[in-house]
């Protein structure tokens, strides 16, 4: 049903005309008060207009529900499908796929590829190469016309030489006009440079602007801008272009080019477990932060140790001497980027909220359910912080007992 408000003039007319044979059936008997006076129910006067504002039709005695109808379900906007059946050329994009999802850097890269494929009335197709498992559910709106997916168990681990060889095969087969990779520390920068060395092409690194056939790149470790002619391989920075937002794309799965297994000279032995408190607070992925509401600090430290979280603190906890100054999260401390941030006993001063603005998931443990942190949090546990932490540790311990995991602890500088 559409969102547009429609009047029903006939019903309104019946409502106005007390002599109409259907008036009583539609409107009901006029309401009378205890003394027999005719009463008007003020709440039934008027109707809710198209923009959510109440409108009163003074022209007649219209009543709510009679005068019109309004859609209640929000209509999901279906974006137009961008279809490329016979592309003139291909633009290859290799996305990072951090934790099996597209991140902003990937989307910006795809946006730039879409722009390059369709500028000047060109009809190119964006081919995205995905390595490993994919959990992303919005692949169609990311701007991917064609999809090449390598999904064997070998791609779960770090195998840059195999990936580079696969990309070489794809490049030989499709002859893409340009190859775009995010110039990131999540693998794109490494893979792009490997590919460039393999194909004997000079890549444009740190590209942040494409002006037609001119590229603007960051050089000199970020101190200079280099304007240079267009290159075949582009390693682009974040926010190099707007991500695709106005079209859906086909994401047609292309057959995987015959994958040649190359001899692995690099063998992935897996991740090491690192002391979470040795990780820089600004780049830690999981932070357990304590504030004024924490009364049992030894238990807090124990919880951080068992959960494997980096410890943070609010300003009050630091001022009171429970945590060192370099653990402070917020405006005068560190601005964190954690994927999960657990705030224990932090009510959420605005300076603290600024510091956690970039966190994905915030969990609040607090005894006050009206504080700002609870408003910001995706999950709030209201109650005594040490009790909830204790319960959480019990759950974690139970789970660990069911599934023993071997940890190799290393000491790193």
């Amino acid at each position, binding site marked *: 049903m559409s969102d547009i408000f429609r009047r029903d003039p006939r019903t309104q007319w019946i409502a106005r005309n007390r002599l109409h044979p259907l008036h009583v059936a539609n409107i009901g008997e006029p309401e009378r008060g205890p003394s027999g006076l005719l009463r008007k129910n003020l709440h039934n006067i008027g109707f809710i207009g198209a923009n959510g504002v109440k409108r009163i039709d003074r022209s007649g005695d219209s009543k709510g529900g009679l005068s019109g109808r309004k859609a209640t379900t929000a209509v999901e906007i279906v974006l137009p499908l961008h279809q490329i059946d016979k592309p003139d050329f291909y633009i290859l994009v290799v996305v990072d796929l951090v934790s099996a999802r597209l991140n902003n850097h990937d989307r910006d890269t795809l946006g730039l590829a879409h722009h390059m494929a369709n500028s000047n009335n060109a009809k190119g197709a964006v081919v995205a190469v995905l390595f490993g498992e994919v959990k992303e559910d919005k692949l169609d709106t990311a701007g991917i016309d064609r999809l090449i997916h390598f999904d064997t168990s070998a791609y779960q681990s770090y195998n840059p030489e195999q990936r580079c060889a696969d990309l070489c095969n794809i490049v030989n087969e499709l002859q893409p006009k340009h190859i775009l990779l995010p110039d990131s520390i*999540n693998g794109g920068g490494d893979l792009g440079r490997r590919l460039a060395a393999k194909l004997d092409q000079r890549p444009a690194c740190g590209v942040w602007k494409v002006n037609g056939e001119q590229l603007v790149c960051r050089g*000199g470790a970020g101190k200079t801008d280099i304007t240079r002619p267009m290159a075949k391989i582009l390693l682009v920075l974040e926010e190099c272009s707007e991500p695709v937002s106005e079209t859906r794309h086909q994401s047609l799965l292309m057959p995987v080019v015959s994958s040649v297994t190359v001899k692995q*000279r690099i*063998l992935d*032995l897996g991740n090491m477990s*690192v002391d979470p408190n040795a990780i820089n607070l600004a780049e830690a992925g999981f932070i357990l932060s304590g504030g004024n509401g924490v009364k049992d600090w030894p238990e807090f430290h124990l919880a951080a140790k068992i959960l494997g979280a980096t410890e943070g603190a609010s300003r009050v906890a630091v001022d009171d001497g429970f945590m060192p100054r370099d653990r402070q999260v917020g405006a005068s401390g560190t601005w964190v980027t954690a994927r999960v941030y657990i705030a224990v006993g932090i009510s959420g001063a605005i300076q603290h909220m600024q510091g956690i603005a970039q966190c994905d998931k915030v969990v609040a443990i607090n005894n006050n359910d009206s504080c700002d942190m609870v408003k910001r949090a995706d999950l709030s546990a209201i109650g005594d912080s040490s009790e909830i932490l204790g319960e959480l540790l019990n*759950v974690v311990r139970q789970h660990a007992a069911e599934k023993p995991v071997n940890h190799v602890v290393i000491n790193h*500088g």
Partner: protein
Amino acid sequence: MIFDPSLNIVTLVSIGEHPLSGRPRRAEQDARALELGLKLVADNLQVLYIGQAKSPATVSVLKDYLGMGLGQIQVLDVPPQADISNTLLENFKANCPDIILTGGRAENGESSGMIPYLLAEQLNIPIVTSITDIVSIDMLTGLAEVLQALPRGQRRKIKVSLPFVASVDMAAPAPRQSAYGCAMRGQLVVKDFNQSIDDVGQRHWQVNSAQMRPKRLKIVKAKTAADRFKAATAKIQGGSGKVIYDSKESAQEIFKLLRDEEML
């Protein structure tokens, strides 16, 4: 921890530049690579610099490197416009060392970070990037175990076959201070390198100091005035998250969230 002294390790160094003052200095990543090399083989470490040997900035910075306890630094003198990757390759073609340590990227010039990749490709040896440490080297099997720095402070252990190129990350142990006495005792062994090829690719480039990048604006794609008004005045919406009052239930929910985000 000093490995087999017969191990042939070369560290490539470059001239760094302070990001604010622009003064020449030890390149931070190269100094870390040098520190790692010194840790592995101490006095047997070979250090190589390619560039203009005569410029005063070069000499002062190379002295800083010498001050870390090096006997000598080999300097290949090439003109400013030379393609360094080519020169390096010519130098290593005759005898390829077991490990070539470099920084991730230079602090001036194009700063593309391609040198280690080009070397590895041309010498047909593997490359491991952004390493923080070399844990062990087994000369019998010809395998080394290295630690690689990952985002968010994580580390990965990698086994790689010798010989290899390794670029060192900023997460590697910080370099030692430069000592004046050592710097004075150390020697710069300059070799002229006449076969250098000019880097013709850079001729059409324009280099300016970096502009501020425009900040991305929040684009509101509202069709109606009411939507635009809502977008302009919207505050953080309260009550969007789940609120639980029971401690047992909330512990379960938090645990589930941590599991879903793969934090445990």
